[in-house]
């Protein structure tokens, strides 16, 4: 991946503080995926990934927010979404990205699964400061 992501048409920010905010994040990301003309399968993958990441923000990060919008790079258009919390952070990133590993009561597929469903995945975390997960899905 080379070049800078260029925002296209502004970014929407939404809180992820309650259970029903996860549903609202799915709606926001679906609207962007439609606008970006992602295929039906890619829409489904992106919205599913967003649902996993929003739930992580809520359950493990203690709440936070999402910023999402369309981006372009090298003539391609995609949907970018960034999930941010100021929770406990992730001490061991490799472990957190392992299928089946969970610190909570989940299946341990949230982070690793979401990573497989998108084209780009960046994770920044600092113990005691919080976690930001940024993803991009490009239109084909």
């Amino acid at each position, binding site marked *: 991946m080379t070049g800078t992501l260029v925002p296209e048409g502004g970014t929407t920010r939404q809180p992820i503080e309650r*259970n*029903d905010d*996860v*549903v609202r994040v*799915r*709606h926001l990301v*679906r609207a962007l995926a439609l606008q970006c003309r992602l295929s*039906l*399968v890619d*829409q*489904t*993958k992106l*919205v*599913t990934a967003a*649902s*996993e990441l929003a*739930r992580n923000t809520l359950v493990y990060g203690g709440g936070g927010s999402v910023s999402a919008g369309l981006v372009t790079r090298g003539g391609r258009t995609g949907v970018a979404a960034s999930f941010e919390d100021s929770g406990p952070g992730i001490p061991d990133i490799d472990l957190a990205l392992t*299928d089946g590993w969970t610190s909570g009561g*989940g*299946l341990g*597929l*949230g982070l*690793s*699964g*979401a990573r*497989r*469903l998108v084209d780009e995945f960046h994770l920044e975390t600092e113990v005691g400061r919080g976690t930001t997960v940024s993803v991009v899905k490009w239109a084909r």
Partner: protein
Amino acid sequence: MSERVPVLRIGDVLLVSIQMDLEDQTVMDLQEDLAERIVATGARGVVIDITAVEIVDSFVGRMLATTASISRMLDAETVVVGMRPAVAITLVELGLSLGGVRTALDLEKGLAILRRRSGLPDADPA
């Protein structure tokens, strides 16, 4: 208060058709409602229709698997019907293949599976 998914009874089958965007709490409520209704009605089968469901993430996927296990313990079989192709592709990529969950392409096929299992005469002439 989150919405509740209605559980309908048709003979000895409970039918759940998910027509809303599922909140996690709604998913948990549904699981409990179903377990209670199975015991209360003595239902032998459960059909969960996800035709209208646009995404199944790991939380909902786990609910489907858990519900199938719970109902099996309560002497009922669960069949999940109507999964969209994009949902199936996404679930497998996510890492959830729902191995323990019986699926059928539509409601009719799902009901046929349950009829066969409970040893009732098949209503299908074929």
